[in-house]
């Protein structure tokens, strides 16, 4: 956790502290160093001054000694002899009296008379001669270099009583002198002499190691003469003086030991280091403790959040800072919300939102979970024609009805062990101990008791499929499919209860598929319309067509309209088909209007259910209006049987169609059991004689008579007559003779796709309808 909050805090804290400490250390040590350096410099300056004083004193002393010597009568007398041996010996003798290391005698005009140093060259003599001049002026000693050694040289005149010679005495600057100087100045002293051959001679109070260190860096001498510096040798602050003030050949170097202050400095540094180390350690502890106290709540919160992340329910954090407490509370609320949402989701995924019963998913799972232990009887209930109830009482009321129905389901006797709403109006019941048809029928009686919705009583009919689990086991999918088959059978046969029997799967599989896929097929465009011309045989003109629906199922192939319409009627889906056909037909009409097929009247078939849907006329009116279609272009065809199912409502709905301006035809006339009295009441324009009478009318006189009578009767009621299913030309002639108005059938054309119909129509009407007859 190097990137943790705590570590970062500690690191930042310690870094800042270290920076401050470092700055302090640098500043203090630097200041100490400067201070020490300054002090050393001063000490060395004092040493230098003292050394100069020492040198001057010595010079004075030597001068005095020599002046006493030069005044000695015996010395003068010996000098005055002019004998070189005598002079040399008196120089040596008297020189040793004052401890001189060298002695020379010069004539008053500066010529060398005698010397204890061998091999003096002209430069040396000149130097000595120069010294006599400075002595005349009361000058002090000079440092002269002879034979790779430095001498402090003094000269005195020898007067007898006039100047007869200059006597000079030299005192070598050796280690002993250095020691004496050191004793007085308190600093180490080194004499360095360089002869004309470049050889260096060192006389020093330093130890051997330091001396050799010194000899290795003699080139620093000029630099050291300008400013005192360190490292000559190590651990010394050194300053160089030119001894003779002229050449760079004779030096004295004064070394002030740095050792003591270096030790002080080291002591200071070590003290600071240990103090800093201590402070750092202490601050680390403090920082760790502080950051711990700062970050502990954060860690607690992190742990809290982690537990929440794992879906646990950690105890609330106590004693956390306000901000973190808020954060923790927020997390808790968030978790609670998520849990609630999750509960909702689970509930929604397993329950029907309307009734609160288990849904299909939950039902499947329940059955699945029961597995082998599943026993008893499954019952699937369906509200007959719920869609129409829906249309009649409105969605909101229908929903209320479903809810009330669900509540009632929960209280019927016997109470189901499991209850689910699979979809729409399909309810699944499970009786673990089984149920007989009789008991179930009693239960259904309870359920069919009228429901009071908005002060009106709604009665419902229920169909039920039963499945005995003991006899018909299988996967959940198979079980549901089988009970749906049983229910469908009940619907189709209009029986209250149908129990599933083995072997009915395959038989009803097609129906089940058609019923289940009808709605999707409509949505996916598997349906289309075809159009069969209706020809005015009196004028030999086509002025209308009947729209017929076709279904090309992707797996089952073309399905006969009779088949799927019958199934749709039984399962209450026929209104979907009617609505679709109405829309398609109107769209086609609009298209043909644009293509010039003006005045073409298109007829669509409605079912009995449509005739009890009192909202349908309003819907059709809206559709027409939306397409700006004239109502008289649309014709409605209804079967006699459909009208007869609920004649009162049917007549009322048909009247509304009429009022809209639609044409209405009675289809399949003659097949039903209606009385002519009803026909009289019906608001129709047209009657279509069923093909069964037309088919054999040329050979069957009864049929011919029925047709002729029907035409006459219809005409007498003021309706036009259409003959369906005409296949032969002679039939047309007969019908024309009998006064039939319109003919529809293969004799003119089979039902055609929209494009083909267009071409047929244009051709037929151009040729007067003659040549197109087959």
């Amino acid at each position: 956790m190097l990137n943790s909050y705590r570590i970062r805090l500690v690191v930042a804290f310690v870094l800042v502290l270290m920076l401050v400490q470092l700055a302090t250390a640098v500043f203090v040590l630097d200041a100490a160093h400067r201070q020490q350096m300054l002090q050393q410099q001063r000490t060395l300056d004092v040493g230098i001054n003292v050394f100069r004083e020492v040198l001057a004193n010595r010079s004075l002393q030597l001068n005095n000694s020599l002046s006493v010597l030069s005044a000695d009568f015996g010395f003068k007398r010996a000098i005055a002899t002019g004998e070189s041996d005598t002079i040399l010996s008196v120089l040596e003798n008297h020189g040793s009296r004052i401890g001189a290391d060298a002695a020379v005698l010069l004539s008053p005009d500066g010529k060398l008379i005698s010397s204890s140093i061998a091999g003096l060259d002209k430069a040396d003599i000149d130097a000595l001669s120069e010294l006599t001049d400075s002595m005349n002026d009361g000058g002090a000693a000079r440092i002269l270099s002879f034979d790779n050694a430095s001498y402090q040289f003094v000269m005195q005149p020898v007067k007898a009583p006039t100047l007869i010679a200059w006597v000079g005495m030299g005192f070598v600057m050796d280690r002993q002198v250095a020691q004496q100087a050191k004793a007085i100045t308190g600093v180490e002293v080194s004499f360095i002499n360089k002869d004309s051959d470049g050889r260096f001679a060192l006389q020093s109070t330093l130890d051997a190691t330091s001396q050799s260190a010194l000899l290795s860096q003699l080139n620093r001498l000029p630099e050291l003469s300008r400013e005192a510096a360190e490292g000559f040798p190590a651990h010394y602050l050194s300053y160089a003086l030119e001894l003779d003030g002229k050449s760079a050949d004779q030096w004295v170097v004064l070394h002030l030991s740095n050792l003591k202050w270096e030790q002080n400095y080291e002591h200071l540094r070590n003290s600071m280091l240990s103090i800093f180390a201590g402070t750092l350690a202490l601050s680390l502890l403090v920082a760790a403790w502080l950051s711990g106290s700062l970050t502990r709540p954060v860690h607690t919160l992190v742990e809290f959040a982690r537990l929440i992340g794992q879906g646990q329910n950690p105890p609330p954090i106590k004693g956390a800072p306000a901000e973190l407490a808020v954060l923790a509370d927020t997390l808790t609320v968030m978790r609670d919300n998520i849990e609630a949402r999750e509960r909702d989701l689970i509930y929604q995924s397993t329950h029907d939102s309307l009734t609160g019963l288990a849904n299909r998913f939950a039902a499947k799972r329940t059955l699945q979970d029961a597995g082998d232990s599943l026993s008893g009887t499954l019952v699937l209930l369906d509200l007959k024609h719920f869609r129409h109830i829906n249309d009649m009482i409105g969605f909101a009321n229908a929903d209320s009805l479903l809810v009330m129905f669900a509540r009632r389901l929960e209280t019927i006797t016997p109470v189901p062990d499991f209850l689910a709403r699979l979809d729409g109006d399909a309810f699944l019941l499970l009786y673990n101990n089984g149920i007989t048809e009789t008991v179930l029928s009693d239960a259904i009686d309870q359920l069919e008791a009228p429901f009071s919705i908005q002060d009106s009583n709604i009665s419902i009919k229920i169909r039920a499929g039963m499945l005995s689990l003991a006899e018909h086991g299988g996967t959940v999918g198979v079980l549901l499919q089988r009970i749906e088959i049983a229910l469908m059978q009940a619907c189709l046969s209009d029986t209250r209860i149908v129990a599933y029997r083995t072997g009915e799967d395959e038989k009803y599989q097609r129906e089940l598929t058609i019923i289940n896929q009808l709605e999707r097929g409509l949505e996916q465009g598997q349906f289309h319309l075809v159009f069969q011309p209706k020809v005015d045989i009196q004028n030999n003109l086509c002025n209308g067509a009947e729209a017929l629906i076709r279904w090309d199922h992707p797996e089952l192939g073309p399905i006969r309209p009779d088949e799927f319409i019958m199934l749709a009627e039984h399962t209450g889906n026929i209104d979907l088909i009617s609505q679709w056909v109405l829309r398609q037909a109107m769209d086609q009409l609009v298209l043909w209007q644009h293509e010039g097929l003006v005045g073409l009247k298109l007829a669509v078939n409605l079912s009995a259910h449509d005739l009890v849907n009192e909202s349908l006329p309003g819907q059709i009116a809206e559709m027409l209006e939306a397409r700006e279609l004239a109502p008289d272009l649309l014709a409605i065809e209804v079967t006699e049987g459909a009208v007869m199912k609920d004649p009162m409502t049917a007549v009322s709905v048909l009247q509304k169609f009429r009022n809209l301006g639609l044409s209405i035809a009675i289809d399949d006339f003659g097949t039903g059991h209606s009385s002519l009295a009803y026909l009289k009441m019906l608001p129709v324009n047209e009657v279509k004689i069923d093909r069964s009478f037309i088919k054999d009318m040329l050979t069957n006189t009864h049929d011919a008579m029925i047709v002729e009578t029907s035409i006459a009767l219809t005409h007498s009621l003021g309706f036009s007559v259409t003959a369906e299913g005409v296949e032969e030309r002679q039939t047309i002639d007969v019908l024309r003779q009998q006064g039939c108005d319109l003919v529809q059938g293969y004799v003119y054309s089979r039902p055609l796709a929209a494009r083909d119909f267009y071409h047929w129509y244009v051709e037929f009407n151009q040729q007067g309808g003659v040549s197109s007859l087959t």
Partner: protein
Amino acid sequence: MQKTSSQKNKKAMPKSAGWVLFTLVMMPCFASAIDLRLSIVAPDALAVEDAVVELLPLNADAAVFSGSQKEMSQQDRTFIPFVLTVPKGTRVNFPNLDRTRHHVYSFSEPKPFELKLYVGTPQEPVLFDKPGIVALGCNIHDYMQAFIYVSDSPHARVTDSEGQASFTGLPAGNYRLRVWHPWQNGELLETALTLPAENRVLKYQIDIDRQQKPSAPPAGFGGL
């Protein structure tokens, strides 16, 4: 020091008398015996005292003048006179007029000698028989200093405080003139001179480093 300056003043006293003498010399002389006056000055035009002027006749044989005696006394720890000129062969006495003993010596080449610690006048005078300059000193008083100029010629004089030296009765002829002074810079002046000269007063210039004439410091160690 006070004493020294007072002594100097005392010595300067005969100055006015000297100027009187000088005006006398300017008067005409006899033809056979020539009187000559020489005036020695420094480059600063001041008179040079204690300069030795020697006239060496070129056409006369060098003669030894024996028998004559001169004195170099010591009084107040000072040699008197500071410069003494004697013809070669002259004996010089060194009478000690002080109560302290003196140890007079010379290491000069013409006459090294030594008169060890003595009081009064030494028994024997010292004979200076070689020409040259003899520097005198006292071994126990280093500051005492004097010079004896031993001349070849009998005609040698020391200039007085006016820087003048007078010769009387000089025979006519060619001379070599030498001028020397203890403080002289460079070689001593030597020039040819024919007498009688146009002027009887001749003026010569020499270069000297003027110094204090040696005199005794105040008694006691402080003066050493």
